[in-house]
């Protein structure tokens, strides 16, 4: 409709009988060309790290539908429930919308922060001023960043400022596997060639319910191709139901089974001789290896694990001879659950090496990728300042973790409260709620000791309640990036991530915040050689060009996806000291660990006071603690319960739905009992991600209980004493008492 002169006057209020009151400007503007046509845009999911390709339908500026992207290696043309419900996150009414600052200086989960809205300018200026003051007065060690090491411009910012204290949940989920793989096979890999495997051995990992489509599709394909699947899990999980054999293993004893299997394979010389001789250091350390594993007999392992000795022996023989065989080690499912996870991941890595399937068909392989240059390669920065200072998480006591560059989630509260009280003067939390930490109540107390806390997030988390400044974060559907395939990448593939709608309200990306804070705190690192400020879009264009994807990001956005056809050529040298995979790892011995995995029990053992094992899981339709407020997903899995076997329920006199109190040595929660025969009778199982305190989170607020209230956090001394040299967070290492309320 054409705009009349009256309308123009009206925008300014001149023609209104209400005078300036009725002025439509600045709230309205002349209409454009009307409703925009429906568009289909290629982009990538961002709910979990397998980042499946998808097609977004956008009608008149509103996302209306998400579906899988044909030809994409990750999703295989499909989406999981979480991915398909992305609009629920984008249009969540509870999203953080504008920067805010606290006006009540008293901090605590029960305090009203007294928020007022501020401009981005004021928020960034205040943060820069506080961070600068902390740096000048207390040095680099006084800043804490709880954030992923991405995007690259955010890393540039932290490097430019000289941040020494950075931790993130990847340290909880991936760290142990990362440290072990670096020295055994040459690097962390997400790729598992299930489709070509004939024998799949799963220690705990419920990969079907974990709902990374790439894995779920892979194992279904493997079964179709005749693979045998064996599963050790205290719970009769979705994957256990799918497996050929399931063993309800005693929690935390997977290591015993793995060690005994290695013993069988080595002592019976069943290993893949060609691979082991050519590509591992087995022969160099043969006598030590043979001698070391002798002690771990199947009978011994059976007593530790409740898995029969003859089954361990048979499975070991089958694994070695009926391959290609694979024992995938995923992240949290294994690498962080118990204090002995460091040893377990090493043992699993050895099993794969003995099967001879590292970077071979049917095994764990390294992603073939199109290299995408980093911002530091495109605009080289001045030399970064040396990082000096004490580590609040104590990771300097674990040399292998220190060299990894990550940090320790599970020791952070102890560092803040006991080891270095007052050291951290300012902190930045990017998309982390305290629900993700072991013992969140203690973490909340620890955060309250930090004089200046910034929280950037897309939802009002419990961490935001403790912040001085809250910054609203845009989400993946509002962002631009290049996403290489890392989970299924026998051939290189890159998919575009593009903002399918403009970022809602005043939300911004963490990359933009890095640039703006960088301009204020370390300007020399955020300039082009000609002295102008770095432009995020210009850097993205250059990445596209240098990666050979297109001439500009705009052009790549139209193309959507690039796949390079090339044959899969197995590696013959590995990125490990000496170029060969290492079964025996001398570097572990040199840096505070053991060169070969040794048996260590899990940290917490049942006792008369706490007689039951405590297990947690993430439901298939949720992503950690970030999706419970998504209305669509919440409808499918709205709250948690205390899952227990009917035998246990009878023992403690509890019926279905009756409220029980679960108590560990650090806390207690109350939940309704759910009786299920799919669990060992000595375990209690609770879903993670519930128990959000914000009562106004429209969907998730007040539903369920925080599973992590029962999980003890750790001290660095405990980790060292436990031989936990690769930093496992022990986030399922708890025993509990259960009583009817």
């Amino acid at each position, binding site marked *: *409709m054409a*705009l*009349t002169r*009256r*309308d123009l006057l*009206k*925008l300014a209020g001149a*023609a*209104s*009988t*209400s*005078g*300036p*009151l*009725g002025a*439509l*400007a*600045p*709230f*309205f*503007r*002349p*209409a*454009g060309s*009307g*409703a925009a046509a429906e568009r289909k845009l290629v982009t990538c999911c961002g709910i979990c790290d397998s980042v499946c390709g998808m097609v977004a339908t956008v009608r*008149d*500026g*509103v*996302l209306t539908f998400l579906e899988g992207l044909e030809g994409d290696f990750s999703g295989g043309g499909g989406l999981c429930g979480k991915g398909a419900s992305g*609009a629920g996150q984008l*249009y*969540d*009414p*509870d*999203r*953080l*919308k504008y920067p*805010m600052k606290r*006006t009540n200086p008293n901090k605590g989960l029960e305090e*009203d*922060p007294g*928020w*007022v*809205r501020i401009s981005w300018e004021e928020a960034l200026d205040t943060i820069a001023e506080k961070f600068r003051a902390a740096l000048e007065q207390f040095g680099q060690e006084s800043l804490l960043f709880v954030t992923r090491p991405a995007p690259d411009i955010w890393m540039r910012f932290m490097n430019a400022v000289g941040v020494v204290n950075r931790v993130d949940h990847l340290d909880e989920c991936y760290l142990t596997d990362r440290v072990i793989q670096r020295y055994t096979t040459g690097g962390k890999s997400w790729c598992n060639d299930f489709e070509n495997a004939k024998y799949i051995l799963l220690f705990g990992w419920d990969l079907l319910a974990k709902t990374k489509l790439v894995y779920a599709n892979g194992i279904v394909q493997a079964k179709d191709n005749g693979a045998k699947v064996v599963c050790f899990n205290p719970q009769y999980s979705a994957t256990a139901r799918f497996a050929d054999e399931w063993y309800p293993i005693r929690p935390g004893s997977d290591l015993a089974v793995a060690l005994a299997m290695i013993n069988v394979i080595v002592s019976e010389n069943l290993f893949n001789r060609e691979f082991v001789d050519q590509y591992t250091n087995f022969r160099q350390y043969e006598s030590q290896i043979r001698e070391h594993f002798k002690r771990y007999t199947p009978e011994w392992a059976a007593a530790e694990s409740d898995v029969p000795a003859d089954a361990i022996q048979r499975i070991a023989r089958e694994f070695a001879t009926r391959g290609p065989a694979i024992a995938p080690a995923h992240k949290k499912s294994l690498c962080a659950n118990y204090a002995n996870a460091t040893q377990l991941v090493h043992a699993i890595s050895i099993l794969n090496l003995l099967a001879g399937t590292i970077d071979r068909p049917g095994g764990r392989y390294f992603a073939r990728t199109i290299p995408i240059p980093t911002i530091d390669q495109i605009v080289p920065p001045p030399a970064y300042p040396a990082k000096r200072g004490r580590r609040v998480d104590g990771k300097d006591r674990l040399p292998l973790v220190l060299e990894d560059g990550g940090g320790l989630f599970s020791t952070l509260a102890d560092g803040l409260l006991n080891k270095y009280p007052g050291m951290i003067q300012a902190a930045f939390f990017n998309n982390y709620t305290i629900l993700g930490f072991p013992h969140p109540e203690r973490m909340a107390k620890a955060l309250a000791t930090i004089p200046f806390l910034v929280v950037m997030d897309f939802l*009002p988390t419990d961490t*935001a*309640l403790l*912040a001085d400044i*809250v910054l609203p974060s845009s989400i993946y559907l509002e962002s631009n990036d290049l996403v290489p395939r890392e989970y299924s990448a026998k051939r290189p593939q890159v998919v575009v991530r593009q903002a399918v*709608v403009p*970022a*809602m*309200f005043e939300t911004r990306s963490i990359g933009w915040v890095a640039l703006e804070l960088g301009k204020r705190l370390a300007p020399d690192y955020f300039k082009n050689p000609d002295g102008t400020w770095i432009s995020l879009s210009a850097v993205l264009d250059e990445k596209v060009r240098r990666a050979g994807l297109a001439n500009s990001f705009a052009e790549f956005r139209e193309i959507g996806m690039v796949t390079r056809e090339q044959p899969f050529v197995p590696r013959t040298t590995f990125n490990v000291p000496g170029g060969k995979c290492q079964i025996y790892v001398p570097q572990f011995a040199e840096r505070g660990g053991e060169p070969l995995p040794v048996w260590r029990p899990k940290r917490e053992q049942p006792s008369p006071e706490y007689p039951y094992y405590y297990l947690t899981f993430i439901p298939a339709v949720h992503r950690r603690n970030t999706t419970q407020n998504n*209305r669509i997903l919440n409808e499918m899995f709205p709250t948690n319960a205390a899952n227990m076997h009917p035998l246990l329920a009878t023992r403690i006199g509890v019926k279905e739905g009756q409220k029980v109190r679960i108590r560990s040595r650090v806390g207690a929660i109350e939940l309704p009992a759910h009786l299920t025969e799919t669990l060992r009778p000595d375990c209690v199982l609770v879903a993670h991600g519930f128990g959000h305190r*914000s*009562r*106004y*989170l*429209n969907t998730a607020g007040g539903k369920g209980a925080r599973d992590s209230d029962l999980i003890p956090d750790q001290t660095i001394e405990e980790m060292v004493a436990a031989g936990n040299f690769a930093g496992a967070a022990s986030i399922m290492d708890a025993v509990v008492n259960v009583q009817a309320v």
Partner: protein
Amino acid sequence: MVEPGPGFAASEPAPWFAFLGQALLVPETARLAALLEELIKVIGRPEDDALVATFRQALEGDPLELEREYVRLFLDPAGAPCPPWQSVYSEEPRLMGAAHERALAWYRAEGIEPAGENEPADHAGLLLLFFSHLLDGGAPAERLAAFWRDHLEWILRFCELIESETTHPFYRAWAEAAARLVRRMEPEPEAPPPAGFPAEQPLA
């Protein structure tokens, strides 16, 4: 409850709708005070209007308190109790839902669009301001009634929620004034089906 005087929405409700709409879009005390003075100028006879007096008194309080209450009610990072977007009050609460699309169509029919393309069009402030524009422009009764049914009825629920959540005099007065004004503009019920139309039979 404050009894409105004759100045309240006497013969010209448009300035009231404009005031209430803007008050929800710009929570700055100084600006609100200026808008209130504009309102008084337009409606006349403010001296005997108790609601105007309540607004005036509320705006004389601590500006920071007002700002804090605005954020707490509508934008709180700990989760806001009274989200000001209509789609949140629909059967499937969300942003950018059907109410956003309908509001956008209404605005476009008048040749305008919300200035922020990345904010929902069904914000209570925008809807009230737009309704004042329809009133100002002499929109026919059936058009006003259609907009009321599409976009003002829910404001009554919104006002109840605000009244139950706040003790701040400004927002209590806002909710009271908005509820009265919206109720006052309530159209006659739509005509029943014509005679002879078969009545709906209950299922056996």
